[in-house]
């Protein structure tokens, strides 16, 4: 396959291409003394993200949920001597997360229609840039390509926080940048190390995660990574740890979470939504796609640690969320708790837990995204996020209160709404792995109700005491449309999760199977004559 097969590449590159095109036209217009109207930027930006969303839904429709292997695969040599390729493909896990990304993007662009006034062109540019970064990360099957997208995504996010953020935006942006950089540097080192191992065992450099269909070249998943009896930097434990650190910062796991509340709080609404909705999922996705399958023995070894960190995340995040006075910080800490569930599910290493974990990533993206949008709408009206400034909002803003209520309940994990399905499957899997861990994690279900209802009550119920809240205007048509768009998947996943789960079943089983196969590897595989190699 030397041609760029179309759809997936279009999906990934369309936003960036649009951004570049706009930039060129803008440059041209500037050179003759004119300028492209910012409304054109905005319109085309939204158009591109909508087109991406439509194309992604075509991927969704074209995806065959009964097949195990990667679909829409494209493999194009990039730097062949180093084994760096443009290699993309989708399984159910990527599909769900790409779907989430492509769906959230137009939603936040519409939502930030009136919020972003200054430097609109740059804003649109960075948003589109970010979208390509996110989509590419979820589709990359070449480790170095993954790394490039991973880093690409960081840049626009830093600018989104640093330019369009709140009062402490610079501090938050730098903090976010440094945290992520530390992790990704280590990941880069580990990534080179495993490619080096591969080169030593097979004689060629290759960063492909798995062998593309139609080829017989061994890939990283065929590489034997020793558990012991090797220099420390070649062992599974150290390589896993390096990857895990990068991913754990992104997730984030306690105690690496302190960038999150600042970044969330300072980012503009759209930034918070994408940060919570998509960027945090990179960590979980990285574990599932790379860290677990590549280093299964180390992963098993690290399970107790990650169970511990996940439990701490759930309880600690909930308790700290409970005492926040700023709504956005509260939601940020609730993310720590929710992502604790995601991590927990991932490290159960069983079907229920993994499926719950992936689904919960999507759920958290939608629900927390909706929460940030709601808070943003409130902020646009009152220019404060202090919970104590509100109270009795249900009276002037009944529609807001109703939608907010549904989203809060989704976040608490009420059955028939999305959060329940993910949480339930995660807990189910956790009980299989370890009943005590499961029992403690279930306490998180109680605590979620405590902090969420406390917040909801303080904002929405009670008498309208603050005179500034009296004349608040209820949601307008655009705001309602944005929120309804998010309510649809909230109910859909809650009522009929099979639509999503059936796309996960084969992929999750395959991930576990690969882990099992690789655990049994005890020596570098002897290269077989190419013709007899079985295609996976």
């Amino acid at each position: 396959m030397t041609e760029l097969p179309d759809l997936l590449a279009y999906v990934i590159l369309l936003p960036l291409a649009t951004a570049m095109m706009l930039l060129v036209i803008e440059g041209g217009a500037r050179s003759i003394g004119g300028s492209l109207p910012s409304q054109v930027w905005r319109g085309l930006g939204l158009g591109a993200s909508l087109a991406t969303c439509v194309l992604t839904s075509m991927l969704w429709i074209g995806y065959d949920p009964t097949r195990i292997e990667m679909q829409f695969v494209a493999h194009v040599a990039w730097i062949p001597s180093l084994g760096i390729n443009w290699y993309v493909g989708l399984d159910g896990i990527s599909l769900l997360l790409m779907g989430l990304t492509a769906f959230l993007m137009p939603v936040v662009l519409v939502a930030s229609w009136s919020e972003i006034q200054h430097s609109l062109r740059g804003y649109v540019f960075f948003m589109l840039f970010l979208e390509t970064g996110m989509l590419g990360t979820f589709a990359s099957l070449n480790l170095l390509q993954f790394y490039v997208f991973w880093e690409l995504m960081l840049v626009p996010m830093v600018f989104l926080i640093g330019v369009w953020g709140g009062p402490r935006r610079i501090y938050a942006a730098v903090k976010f940048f440094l945290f992520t950089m530390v992790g990704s540097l280590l990941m880069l080192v580990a990534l080179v190390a495993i490619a080096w191992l591969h080169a030593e065992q097979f004689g060629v450099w290759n960063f492909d995660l798995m062998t593309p269909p139609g080829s017989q070249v061994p890939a990283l998943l065929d590489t034997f990574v020793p558990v012991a009896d090797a220099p420390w930097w070649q062992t599974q434990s150290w390589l896993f740890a390096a990857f895990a650190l990068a991913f754990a910062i992104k997730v984030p796991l306690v105690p690496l979470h302190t960038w999150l509340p600042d970044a969330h709080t300072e980012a503009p609404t759209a930034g918070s939504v994408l940060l919570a909705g998509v960027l945090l999922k990179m960590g979980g996705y990285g574990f599932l796609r790379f860290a677990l399958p590549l280093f299964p023995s180390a992963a098993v070894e690290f399970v107790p640690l990650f169970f511990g960190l996940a439990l701490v995340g759930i309880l600690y995040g909930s308790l700290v969320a409970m005492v926040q006075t700023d709504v956005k910080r509260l939601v940020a800490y609730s993310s720590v708790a929710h992502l604790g569930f995601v991590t927990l599910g991932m490290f159960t290493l069983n079907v229920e837990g993994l499926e719950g974990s992936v689904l919960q990533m999507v759920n958290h993206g939608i629900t927390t995204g909706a929460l940030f949008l709601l808070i943003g709408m409130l902020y646009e009206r009152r220019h404060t996020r202090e919970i104590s400034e509100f109270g009795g909002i249900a009276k002037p803003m009944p529609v807001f209160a109703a939608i907010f209520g549904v989203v809060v309940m989704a976040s608490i994990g009420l059955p028939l709404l999305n959060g329940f399905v993910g949480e339930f499957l995660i807990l189910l899997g956790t009980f299989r792995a370890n009943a005590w861990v499961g029992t403690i994690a279930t306490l998180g279900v109680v605590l979620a109700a405590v902090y969420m209802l406390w917040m909801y009550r303080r904002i929405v119920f009670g008498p309208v005491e603050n005179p500034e809240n009296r004349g608040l205007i209820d949601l307008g048509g655009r705001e309602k449309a944005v929120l309804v768009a998010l309510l649809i998947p909230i109910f859909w996943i809650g009522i009929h999760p099979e639509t999503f789960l059936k796309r996960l079943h084969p992929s999750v089983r395959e991930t576990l199977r690969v882990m099992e196969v690789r655990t049994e590897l005890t020596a570098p595989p002897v290269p077989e004559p190419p013709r007899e190699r079985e295609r996976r």
Partner: protein
Amino acid sequence: MSVGGEYDLLRWIPALPLAAAVIHGLCLGLLRQPLPRISTIALSCGATGLSFVLSFFALLALTRLPAENRVLQDGLFTWIGAGPFSAEAAFLLDPLSAVMILIVSGVGFLIHVYSIGYMDADTREDRGFQRFFAYLNLFTFSMLVLVLADNLLLMFLGWEGVGLCSYLLIGFWYGDEWNAYCGSKAFIVNRIGDFGFLVGMFLLFWALQDAGHGAIAFLEIKAAFPAIADQTVQLPTWLGGGEWMLATLIGLCFFLGAAGKSAQLPLYVWLPDAMAGPTPVSALIHAATMVTAGVYLVCRLSFLYSVALGASAIIAWVGALTALFAAIIAMAQTDIKKVLAYSTMSQLGYMFLAAGCGAYGAAVWHLTTHAWFKALLFLAAGSVILAVHHEQDMDKMGGLQRFLVWTRLTFLAGVLAIVGAPYLSGFFSKDEILLSVHLAGHVPGHTALYWIALITAGLTAFYMFRMYFRIFFGECRLPREQQGSVQESPRTITIPLVVLAILAVAGGVVIGPSDAFIPVIEDANSFANFVAPVLPAAGHDVEHGLVWKLAGLTTLVAFLGAVMAYWLYVVRPDHPEKIRRLLGGVFRMVEGRFWIDELYDYILVRPLVWISDRILYRWLDSRLLDGIVIDGTARGIRALAADMFKYSQSGLVQGYLFLMLVGALAIIGYLAT
């Protein structure tokens, strides 16, 4: 698995109220276009009424099947499935759920009708007439799903759904901070129970899976359960260690859930506060239906509890102690809704006592009669409250019998039913419970349990008659200017009262007396016979003589309680004050409900908030992690780098590349702006 057969009508029983709720929700929540009053009424009452009719048809279809094979099923689709786990959206009708759906839709319908009158009388600015009915419909849907669910997970859906509606309806008048607080409290305390429910469900599923057949549907669990019935688990030493029966452990987990929902010790604290909601809500949710869900759960899992004798004994004891504890508190309350709330708790305690003693049929029978007479009492109390302009303190009432003829008569019927006046509904069900406790030799301390139950019967009679006399007898203590305006409630209120009063009075004789009492009727014991295929019978052969003896004793005790109330509150109304002064601190403790709320607040809530705020957030998160570790490292590196860059420019290539990229983008971004 299907033994009885498919019955497609089942899905419509919960679907109709759901449809009504969705229509209401769209009109109100999204479009902001309230329906006209009459459409609201037609939609809500119509949906629930139709549900009742369908429930009745379903009952008929069920009774046409042979008695030992009475199961109807209706499957829709797989709700959640992963690995070996699969939970269907499917409904199951057997005699137990048939009884429940008739109560839920029947009593529910009456309360819908009652609510028309009640909510009309509400004159607040935002009276939310339609919002109220939307919540009621949503509740009816959830409750019907809870009792019709064919598996534990779907039951949990209903379980959480009724919790949500309870939350919304307790805080219905959200403009008042207190109501909203009570709603949240109910939800959170229930969540503690849900924790038990979930843990029980997980343990049960995986135990069954390990034994060969992981199941979540009730019929399958029941079939597969014997495989794990004798399993034991070793508890860690910090939990006391020792071998525990797995069934007992699972049973206790589910009972935690039941105790939360049904307001048993120690999770009862939300129920008295739940009285902040409108009175029809208290009648429907916090008396007749939702709070009995815990009893239903225990009965639904009776195959488990009849093996898990340890768990059953704990249930019996918790039930008995709750019954007594709540009855004692009820004696000293003056808010009429609070009295009824504690009375509900107490009666639920009776039901758990029966279930714990293995008399599941008696528990469900008392659940049924209780639904009639307690709904009646609440609705009648609501009628009183309306008449006296939302006053709930019985110290400020009195002498209302002149004004509220229908309300008083129906209230009296309810009081007589609950105290167990011979041949009224409560008489049969309560005596059956006392009888089964008396005979439950396998439960540790069953004699003590019997005496507790008996004393509680006396106390019940006392506080119920006390309330009755304080409201309707003596001189009117209302402010003079209000006395003239007290009048009987409208028909939409009195008609449901009369219907429920008829049920409370005659329902027992008609559908379920023990054959000891009415030897002439062929098919006596019909209720017990009907539910017997689902609920293992206690299995004693009882002499009629013993039944009569025990019934006589209970009636005598109740009579004494009533006479005491009459003497204290009608004959010598000056005495209560004296007794109160005589008891001093003891009385204040009872009046203050043993200060349990305050205790929880000081030993649980406050420390938790303090630790979270001061230690976790301010100290650990902000100061240590963020301040010292992160910012400190950053400062350290900056200081170090300032030195280093003097001598060396060689950083990491990767870093340089990255900085270049950032720089380039910064320029592009600047240009683009």
